[in-house]
């Protein structure tokens, strides 16, 4: 009985073709959102500076084992060439592959699910302009209990909300844009929020940092608490996003360098929106 319930609860939730908007994608905006989303930071070849080639291969070491980032170049055999629009949206926002199996949340669809379908379709249009790369990637190397993909359906049932971002009418356009960028494509919470033992984000501790998932080091608290960036002004945050320099004279390092350099490519208004939104967060120790 329990197994039947588990099977039903773990079924993939997806959009149907009929749910797709009538829309002509904009590859230029796609490149912009692709940059905000940091897609190349995981999907480009490890150690490569070329963000147009997306063969995957990067190894993500986690407490669950090692994930190998897949090829998302438009190659028809080894990449995502030939995917339909609805397949791409289901992957990005629902974490479901074209063959109906669940993706592991090391792919941060738990954030991307907030994105507008039009932004997601724009990303696909941009990726379709990039070169097809033939390389294959090893299977994930996970500890035994985590090898059952179907079980991810239960994980999603526990930890995932499928709602798209809804602007708050009480907030300014800028704050809403900041909230969208940070929580959607920026997926900042995925690194900056502590997780529970099952790998789910502890949203009551949103953006308050914690130990780095790959063992060494610490991920900073970026809430306006004194343990975080409480004594940073919005302008300090702006400078950090543009330049990587911190108010105390330090410079950004580690995996955050790639993120900051992506943020530096967004337009000034969007960086301003991100800064204002971060200043508006609940301070968490």
């Amino acid at each position, binding site marked *: 009985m329990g197994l039947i319930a588990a099977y039903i609860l773990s079924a993939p939730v997806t959009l149907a073709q009929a749910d797709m908007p009538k829309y002509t994608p904009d590859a230029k905006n796609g490149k912009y959102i692709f940059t905000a989303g940091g897609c190349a930071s995981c999907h480009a070849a490890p150690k490569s500076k070329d963000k147009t080639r997306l063969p995957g291969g990067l190894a993500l070491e986690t407490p669950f084992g090692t994930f190998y980032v897949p090829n998302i170049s438009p190659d028809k055999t080894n990449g995502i060439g030939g995917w339909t629009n609805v397949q791409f949206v289901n992957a990005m926002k629902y974490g479901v592959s074209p063959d109906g199996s669940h993706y592991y949340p090391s792919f941060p669809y738990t954030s991307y699910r907030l994105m507008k379908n039009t932004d997601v379709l724009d990303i696909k249009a941009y990726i379709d302009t990039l070169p097809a790369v033939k390389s294959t990637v090893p299977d994930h190397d996970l500890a035994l209990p985590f090898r059952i993909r179907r079980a991810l359906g239960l994980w999603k049932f526990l930890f995932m909300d499928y709602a798209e971002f809804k602007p708050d009418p009480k907030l300014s356009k800028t704050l809403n844009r900041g909230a969208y960028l940070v929580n959607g494509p920026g997926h900042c919470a995925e690194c900056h929020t502590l997780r529970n033992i099952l790998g789910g984000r502890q949203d009551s501790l949103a953006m308050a940092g914690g130990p780095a998932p790959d063992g*060494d*080091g*610490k991920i*900073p608290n970026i809430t306006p608490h004194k343990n975080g960036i409480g004594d940073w002004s919005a302008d300090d945050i702006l*400078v950090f996003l543009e*330049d*990587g*320099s911190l*108010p*105390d*004279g*330090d*410079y*950004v*390092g*580690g*995996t955050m*360098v790639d993120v*900051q350099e992506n943020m530096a490519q967004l337009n000034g208004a969007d960086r301003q929106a991100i800064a204002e939104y971060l200043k508006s967060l609940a301070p968490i120790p």
Partner: protein
Amino acid sequence: MFTLKKTLVLGAVFAVGLTAAQAADDPIATRKALMKTVGVSIKASVPMIRGKVPYDAVKAELAMRAINAVATGIGNFYPDGSQTGGKTSASPKIWSDRAGYTALRKEMADASAAAMVAAKAGEGPFKAAFGKVGATCKKCHKAYRVKK
């Protein structure tokens, strides 16, 4: 605590190559202090770069000189045995890839030296040269620092 003047003295002293005995005293605390002095220089420079305060060629040159002193001398403070402890943020890669680390340190020495010259030439040249300094800070922090 760390004024620009104090920073220069500290930086100059350490750049003149301390003996192994002195370095052995507490290399971790020493190198952390040296990095803090670099922070003082950056903090003095950024407002000028961003036009928040008037450009001061003397201040800019001194700030870059301090960074240059640290970049030149700090390599002495990563002896074997100082990989852990003392809240060090040094990545193990500094030892496993000493050549790569040393190359970046030299890159910083060169960038800051160029910025010292640019500082005297004026605000525009300094701004351009400072960009390379900041970029080099990031390069090293990306590969060789683990923030604790």
